[in-house]
């Protein structure tokens, strides 16, 4: 059986996999990192998005054996060791940008890459277009868009702290 060596959330792993194994299967079944989800079988939903070398990828659309030497970050690797949430995680909570939580890991990983690729911030329209690869059935996306805008301000230093969601 083929072997693949890769780094996931800072830890090096060498794993034997069937050649047809997808990265998401390696993460979920071999490494038991079940935060990365599978929501479809046609690369449509984005629940499986992880970072590889800092770029977001759909882990259902790459074979594990293609990841030799790769540096992968999953949703489990985002928060600091002391439990401090990443600003995007904190913003999703503050803006009620998740309901059932199933699309959330992929949505958060996509959102971070989206922000990183737009260092000067984004318009609402740009955020909506940037989420083209991620489906959510619960929220209607509106709070996700608001959370990403607020997180990008923190991640890019425009605000020192997360802007609280508007009071009811």
């Amino acid at each position, binding site marked *: 059986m083929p072997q693949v060596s890769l780094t996931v959330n800072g830890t090096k792993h060498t794993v034997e996999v*069937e050649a*047809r194994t997808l990265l998401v299967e390696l993460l*979920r079944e071999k490494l*038991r*990192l*079940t*935060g*990365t*989800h*599978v*929501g*479809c*079988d*046609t690369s*449509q*939903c984005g*629940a499986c998005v992880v970072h590889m070398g800092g770029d977001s990828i759909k882990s259902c659309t790459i074979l594990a054996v293609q990841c030799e030497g790769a540096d992968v970050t*999953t*949703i*489990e690797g*985002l*928060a600091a060791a002391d439990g401090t*949430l990443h600003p995007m*995680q904190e913003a*999703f*909570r*503050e803006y*009620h940008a*998740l*309901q*059932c*939580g*199933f*699309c*959330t*890991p992929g949505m*958060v990983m996509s959102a971070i890459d989206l922000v990183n690729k737009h260092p000067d911030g984004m318009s*609402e*329209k740009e*955020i*909506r*277009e940037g*989420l*083209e690869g*991620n*489906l*959510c*059935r*619960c*929220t*209607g*996306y*509106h*709070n*996700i*868009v608001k959370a990403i805008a607020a997180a990008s301000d923190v991640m890019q230093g425009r605000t020192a702290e997360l802007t609280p*969601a508007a*009071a*009811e």
Partner: protein
Amino acid sequence: MNAVQPFEGIGASVRRKEDFRFLQGRGMYTDDINRPGQTHAFILRSPHAHATIQGIDTAAAKAMPGVLAVFTSADMTAIGGIPCGWQIHNKDGTPMAEPKHPVLAEGKVRHVGDPVAVVVAETRAQARDAAEAIVVDYAPLQGVSSTEAAIAPGAPAVHDGVAGNLCYDWHIGDKATTDAAFAKAAKVVKFSTTNNRLVPNAMEPRAAIGEFDAMSGDYTLYTTSQNPHVIRLLMGAFVLSIPESKLRVVAPDVGGGFGSKIYHYAEEAIVTWASAKVKRPIKWTADRTESFMSDAHGRDHVSTAELALDTDGKILGLKVHTLANMGAYLSTFAPCVPTYLYATLLSGVYATPVIYAEVKAVFTNTVPVDAYRGAGRPEATYLLERLMDVAAREIGMDRVEFRKKNFIPTAAFPYQTPVALQYDSGDYFSTLAGALETSGWATFEERRSEAKARGKLRGIGISTYVEACGIAPSAVVGSLGARAGLYEVGTIRVHPTGSVTVLTGTHSHGQGHETTLAQLVADKLGVPMANIDIVHGDTAKVPFGMGTYGSRSLAVGGSAMDKAMDKIIAKGKRIAAHLMEASVDDVEFERGTFRVAGTDKTKSLTDISLAAYVPHNYPIDEIEPGLDETAFYDPKNFTYPGGCHICEVEIDPDTGKVSVMGFTAVDDVGRVINPMIVEGQVQGGVAQGIGQALLEAAIYDADGQLISGSMMDYTMPRADDLAPVSVATHTTLCTHNPLGVKGCGEVGAIGSPPAVMNAVVDALRDFGVNHVEMPATPAKIWNIINGHRMAAE
């Protein structure tokens, strides 16, 4: 103990407790669970809509690597069919047709996706590989997918013995008085429409793990369910004959349901049953393609409505005829959706004196259809609110004035409709006024002109609606055909040092119960949120429950908790009276403190709970130790959320694309516990409504082949298909539950589709368009516009 923080109680937008684990990938969904020695199942499904099975050869599959077993219906002769939870009676009093729904196909397949065989193997890939080696000898039959074709003479019979594919022919209301009202009418407006079939597509595909303990004889089923106790009842009692005491059903974190995870599905029975055969746990997880062809679909009605009006535009009566698609088999709640969740809502928010509705439910060679995100009420609201616009235009009356003229007056509550329901409270004038104001309705023509100058067609649409949820009084639903009670159960367990565990029979799969339900306790018992835990979704932990659907968790489940808290307080007062040497009648309780009225003598809830569990100074002869109370709450009525939705769209005439420019929802959901969560529930529901109106449709060809069988073929709403939704609430309290709550889970999906479609038709008003069927896709709109242009040339 700390006093409760004021922002944690009822009315506070408390951030959700459950988010910490979901945001860090630490949720525990069914497919995330792995049991020791676990094997994997793959279900072989029919590629045909309708075929007889002349033979199944599993020999090659059984010899494949890693395969433990292959089962077909021939192996499952000792088990029952999948039961239906609701029995409708025909007009003549006879019961509906209820053909057997086998767990695995018996001699015939009736829809694409019908399970035929199951392979159990060491890995999922091995199970899938082996399934390809199963040879099924199908003899394809002519299939039928539409309701109209299925009841036409000579249609293929989906089930032998079900004449004309008719499941039931049902009616409600008074035909004679309705006919009489129509005879007096100055104007009768007729309208026909199809309510497009939807695929639920909760983001988490269904999954199930069956496990059998040969030593104890206990079965455990982990499943993606909205109601684990209901699954235990249906599967244990009717399919597998396992007593409740030997069957534990766990519904852990569930990634969205929207109705599609209410029902007992074949795969749950298969993995449970087969785990005892192979003597190892078995996991099955659907891929999305399986979801499309095995999760119960929603909607799929064909309706004609007639509205009788007097010379002033007052409604005199309504007649409705509907064909409803049941699919190939009866799913758990399917028969009640186009009857008691649909036709009973046809009065809407209007004082319609008489109504007569006929509903024929029809079997077809399609996936079963059942309750989905609103269930019956979106279909009723869409029919009625499109009809109101069509009628207003025909009689030349402003559509808002026409609605107001016919609204049920605010002083008329409780209001008895002619179709069984009694609305307890509402204020349709205020929700309308609020939505008109917020949406800028009065200045819309300026925006239409401005858009026209840019070459765009702008339209605005309105929907005023009511729905019935918080299901439901057991005796009432029993008389209507339900085969279960619909009460809810809540346990309040105050621990010795004052923290609280709540056991609830409802289930959260996105609704945020761990937060909202805890707020009820924080508010009433004065316990900090951090010290309150909500336990749900496990029949081994929660005494009983009917689960979450029909926006019932707060109205019914929350009320059960409230009742249990009343018992806690009543017992606490007796203990406090003893400790403070006062009469129990003099002891008051408010938010964590027992006080002897008119004195400064107090005891905290923690003082009382400690005394209850360490009963040294305790009236042990009169009061049992412990502070742990359970209540069953049976609702006295449905609850009736309602409101007004307004949508503004812009159409690009060159492409036919409809863009949502703005959406306003002003809803009356009763008392609001967590405004942030209510707003999120409404926004999500509206997204579904916009999806149904503009994007989504489950398409079968005439013979029953599923055309839109993946997310590449079925258009799911994405972030850039939608626009910000303005959400506000205007509260009238529910009068019959202790919390005054009505429910907010479905209002978005119920109220919104006609608002969108009324806006689309409004935008096309210069093209002579009276109606556009959902979904209003670019191709459909472009053809309308282009057809009009060609006709004009």
